[in-house]
């Protein structure tokens, strides 16, 4: 029964290759985009850590900079 389900009257090879191709592309795109996001977060944190006290004060006036520094936790998903 399972073999029949997978074989799909001879069309299984076409059906499953189409679905597998789709899922591989999804996974590939997701991990590439996630890696890019993580890399940008790290670059931002690195450059932020190089700032002197006065510039840190200026940077902290923009809330988004704090959000980016805090967003490092995203990489866990």
């Amino acid at each position, binding site marked *: 029964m399972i073999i029949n*389900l997978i074989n*799909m*009257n001879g*069309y*299984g090879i*076409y*059906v499953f*290759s*189409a*679905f597998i*191709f*789709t899922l591989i*592309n*999804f996974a590939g*795109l*997701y991990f590439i*985009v*996630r890696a*890019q*996001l993580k890399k*940008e*977060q790290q*670059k*931002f944190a690195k*450059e*932020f850590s190089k*700032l002197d006290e006065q*510039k840190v004060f*200026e*940077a902290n006036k*923009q*809330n*988004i*900079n*704090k*959000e*980016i520094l805090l*967003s490092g936790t*995203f990489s866990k*998903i």
Partner: protein
Amino acid sequence: MDFFSQSRIFSLINKYQKFILIFFLLVLSVGLIEALFLSPQDYLQGDSVRIMYVHVPSAWISLGIFSLIAFLSILVFIFKNRNLIIIAKSFAPSGFVFTLIALVTGSIWGKPTWGTWWAWDARITTMLILGLFYLMYLLAWRIFEDRNSVVKITSLISIIGAINIPIIKFSVDWWNTLHQPSSIKILSDSSIHEAMLLPLIIMTAAFALFSLLIFLMKYNTELIKIKRKGLNRL
């Protein structure tokens, strides 16, 4: 207006990304079970019709995303809004991947249905042209470094490419093609059975959620890039 501030948008995206990912995986799982095992065979195409459940949603979403990018590009020319540029740019990678999936799964479908992997048919060729426009759009962002030039070039690519969208849509009506005509119509009765329509809708919802997830992640990446450049100017 604070609701639309960059920090609020960034924080909201970060907060809801995880939920969208989980929701996408749930909808996709249900869609896969429906599409692969619960939906019926087609009386002519047999089980090969199941390829439709990945092929059709991919094609719909790739067309939708390109239309959106073209629309945003027109707005960029009118309003010169920087945020619209980031939104358009962030949608492009998933649009390209969906075009690729539509082309490859269509080719896989073609072999058992038409006896060939590829035909220079009007619908297939115009979809290939759409894929090339996506590629040009993405490459332009990598090649050109001057910000003003890259915005103009990518906007032009998307606006010119949008001429192809109605051609793709009506190609099956205007020319005799191997590709079958539309089974789903918004303004008149669809010729698809409900048992096949349900998995198609679920898979379309899953694919739309995936493109939303990728868009949000890309959008946040672009925001961080801009803010990092801002740090250097302090």
